[in-house]
């Protein structure tokens, strides 16, 4: 059974490594600052052996965007959910984790295309699903180019 790692324990470990990174936690997920994301991710990958990035998604709450990272450790059979928030703006910037997990490559392009969150450090950040000249980011709540109902 994959054991989801509990909030307080991992938050404490991350806090030891990079203080001030953790902004909060509950029993399902750990929230970190978006600037500290890369360090926290590196710590999780190297020390806690989270070698498999299951998915990256983003959610549009009206005042901010939230990025959700699902991580799994195949060796030890744990899982963890990491969340970070970024302010709504034209194109908010968040550090990219492609250097740690190559599977993040397409997933980050997906998030950029559909939500408009840019990742610095990504080698090839361009739209994945829509064509390059497409205006707007479809999955934002204020996108109105289609989906009439």
């Amino acid at each position, binding site marked *: 059974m994959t054991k989801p790692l509990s909030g307080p324990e991992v938050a404490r470990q991350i806090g030891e490594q990079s203080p001030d990174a953790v902004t909060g936690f509950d029993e399902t997920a750990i929230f970190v600052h978006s600037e500290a994301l890369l360090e926290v991710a590196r710590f999780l990958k190297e020390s806690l052996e989270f070698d498999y990035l299951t998915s990256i998604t983003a959610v549009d709450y009206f005042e901010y965007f939230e990025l959700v990272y699902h991580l799994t450790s195949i060796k030890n059979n744990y899982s963890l959910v990491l969340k970070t928030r970024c302010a709504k703006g034209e194109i908010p910037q968040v550090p990219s984790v492609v250097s740690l997990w190559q599977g993040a490559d397409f997933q980050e392009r997906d998030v950029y295309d559909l939500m408009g969150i840019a990742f610095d450090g990504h080698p090839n950040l*361009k739209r994945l*699903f*829509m*064509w*390059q*000249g*497409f205006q707007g980011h*479809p999955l934002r709540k204020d*996108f109105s*180019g*289609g*989906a*009439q*109902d």
Partner: protein
Amino acid sequence: MEIEKPYVSSELDRAESAEIEALIASSQQPYPDPVAWIDEEVQRNILVTAIDSVINWGRRSSVWPATLFPACCAFELVATAASRFDISRFGMELMRASPRQADLMLVAGTVTWKLAPALRRIYDQMPEPKWVVAMGACAISGGAFRGSYSVVPGVNLIIPVDVYIPGCPPRPEGLLHGIMMLHRKIARDTISKKGQDD
């Protein structure tokens, strides 16, 4: 191993997206369906009629499809081509990959705006006489995805369609019924009307 790409990816992308935008802008009205079989009182002379029936028999007995495999309907198409609902009895089992060797274009699945220029180009590359069958609800009108930002609401905005086969996905029997309707349409075609439409 880093290879120097001989093209610049972003330039190609920009050219392609310009093409897509141009196609969207120009496809706001559907093409009228070719109505060759409704027109019964065309004056034809006897010689042309006999030649017509032979030519039409030849054409309809082995229509070669060039298939476009976008989505789920493609699997009903392949299942029709498989041994249980044999499409080979109609002479159509050769799914020609190259549009230059095909007569019929079976659009089986959802067409998105990104795919639309490719679809138009394949249609243009097919030699006359050519027919188009729109298979499945998505090809007819956008289907379950009508209203989405990236789906073409009906492939008849881009190419003229001869037969529409409803269903999601249509059963193989439905597809065969549609193909037989197409054969009947081809049978009523006449060579004296060439060059009239399109």
